[in-house]
């Protein structure tokens, strides 16, 4: 009932989908490129009293390894203006004190939703020196377009 062309088309269609599946799975589980999916929670009304957000900031945790604990709230990142040496890997630990925010570092693949009540984690290696624009990419209120900061890589 099906013509040869139809069979080829359906097989190719299924092949495309499976191809995307395989590549996505390989990258996520074999190459450690999975999505930011941290599952820790926090009381969104007690962020400033709860570790590690009681002492937000940048700490060196190893050779060229840093941990940046950043609290997001309307319309700022605490702390902002982080400086790290070139070649550093920064492990971001993020949460929101109020509404839903987004954490994006332009020109990198850092892009994560930051929800109140949840601690989100994402890491990035900064090889190239320069100023990186950090911005909130989820609408969060009247000053959403003022919610940005920068990471300086020296």
């Amino acid at each position, binding site marked *: 009932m099906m013509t040869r062309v139809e069979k080829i088309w359906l097989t190719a269609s299924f092949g495309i989908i499976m191809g995307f599946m395989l590549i996505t799975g390989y990258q996520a589980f074999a190459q450690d490129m999975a999505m*930011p999916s941290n599952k820790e929670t926090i009381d969104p009304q007690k962020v400033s009293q709860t570790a590690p957000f009681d002492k937000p900031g940048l700490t060196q945790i190893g050779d060229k390894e840093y941990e940046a604990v950043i609290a997001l709230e309307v319309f700022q990142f605490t702390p902002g203006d982080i400086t790290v040496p070139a070649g550093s890997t920064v492990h971001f630990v993020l949460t929101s004190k109020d509404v839903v925010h987004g954490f994006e570092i332009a020109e990198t693949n850092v892009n994560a939703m930051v929800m109140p009540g949840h601690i989100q984690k994402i890491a990035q290696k900064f090889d190239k020196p320069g100023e990186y624009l950090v911005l909130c990419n989820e609408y969060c*209120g009247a000053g959403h377009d003022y919610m940005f900061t920068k990471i300086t890589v020296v």
Partner: protein
Amino acid sequence: MEAIINQQSTGGKARAWVGKANQALGLHPEDARFSRTYIAGAFIALLLGGVFGLLQVLVRGGVIDSLPLGLNYYQVLTAHGVMMVVVFSTLFVIGYCYAGLSHTLGGLLPKVRTIAWIGFGLKVVGVAMASVAILSNDATVMYTFYPPMAAVPYFYIGLVFAVLGIWMCAFGAFINVAHWRKAHPGQRVPILSFFATGIFVLLFFGSLPVAVEVLTIIPWSLGWVDTINVMVMRTLFWAFGHTLVNIWYLTAVSAWYVIVPRIIGGARFNDTLTRIVIIMLVMMNITGGFHHQIVDPGISESVKFMHVFMSLAIGFPSLMTAYAMFSVFEKAARKQGGKGLIGWYKKMPWGDVRFLAPMIAMIAFIPAGAGGIVQSTNQLNQVVHNTLWITGHFHLTLGMSVVMTFFGVSYWLIPHLTKRTLTKAINKLGVIQTILWTIGMSLMAVSMHVAGLYGAPRRTAFTEYGGSATAAGWDPYLTLVVIGGSILVVAGILQLYAVFHLLFLAPKGETEFPIAETEPGEATPYWTERWGLWIILMLILVAMAYVIPLAEFIVNAPPGSPPFRTW
């Protein structure tokens, strides 16, 4: 074995008779009035949504600093989204589907008409309440209204009315189809009504999660409950939000399969495969909503990986559609003397707006669908999530594939409903409108995709980000978006004039409801009619997709969030 009934012998004759009667008499005047009202309402929403769209693009592109009447950017963006996403598309879908039901089932039942008018009343009340809230700047929360951002309670109550209105129309459609099936035992429901059944099944089941969401939000926004679970709300929203866009898509697809072949003088694609495509699109749709949450916290990587399959699976019936359409075109063109490997395309009626608009809509779905596959793939999604790429994507899918199909439909459906005819002049206007819209929307959508790839966020007013060089690099693309948006406004005005003309000014006469026939001798197995089974399978898929993450969000819930007003 399932009984197989030859369409040409029994069902075909009955349908041919209904078709002839309808051709002679047109729709029942009451049914025509109902669909006319819905479609007129849809185009009023398009006008309002278009004005809001223009205002917001001028701000975003840095052309103007402030808006008139004390409006602000995010308020206008919310209004643009609500008008286009919730009002325009839904009204058009229901008006078109009800015209199709009335035409192919031999008229609406009087009680169905009553139910559907009550639905219309509920929607008007709901949309009016939501609009007042937005225009008073008390609901500047975007059409996604993610808690813990909280609008005034009556915004949500308005949404409840709108959903109830949609449900009334869905029940009306189910009653009419069930009545026809009882009166025509053993026959397959006419194809356009089969599409409508699928569309209303999705409308009903897709809006269930948002109904639960809104009913949870209302007591919280009134202050009766202190906190809310933001992740559960967000998940419920996208179970609805993604289904909604696919409902418009399924509506556009119905015109591609059923109407367009008739306009080009061809036959429909294989009836069984058409129905399988509809069933697949209905079953696999709601689960697709999860790809909006690929970079969310609180969901494990393995669940997210399973959802790549859940999302990409929808691509399969769409790829079948792509094949079907080109097969139908080529067959029709060759029958009319078209020759060569691709030379047959010259035989297509390019000067007929009823063909040109949906044809460009279909072509636009090739890059639009490909972009969709790209962005539901985990790693690629992380690159473009919440950037202008996404905005560009849905301006291609909805702004072109869906809306241009709806425009194409309006050139025969409105005169059919008003007992008028499409004049040569209005057809020509339609062709110019189609070309302008194509240029405007392509320019806008492509620029948005590129800017998004470089990191420009969506839903953000014009900002230089403190003089950032990166952000300055996005500006040329934003200027192109403004130019595209301005062309769209001109095209939109032409379309509105054509609609006005067809509603009130066009010469009186009969216009055909163009429904293509199948190839002779086709037999469709009766199992395609088993909607109960399709719905159960759909619910099983929904359960597979959502039980694990929702259970996790509820069992491992953090303390909830109080409401915030941040605008």
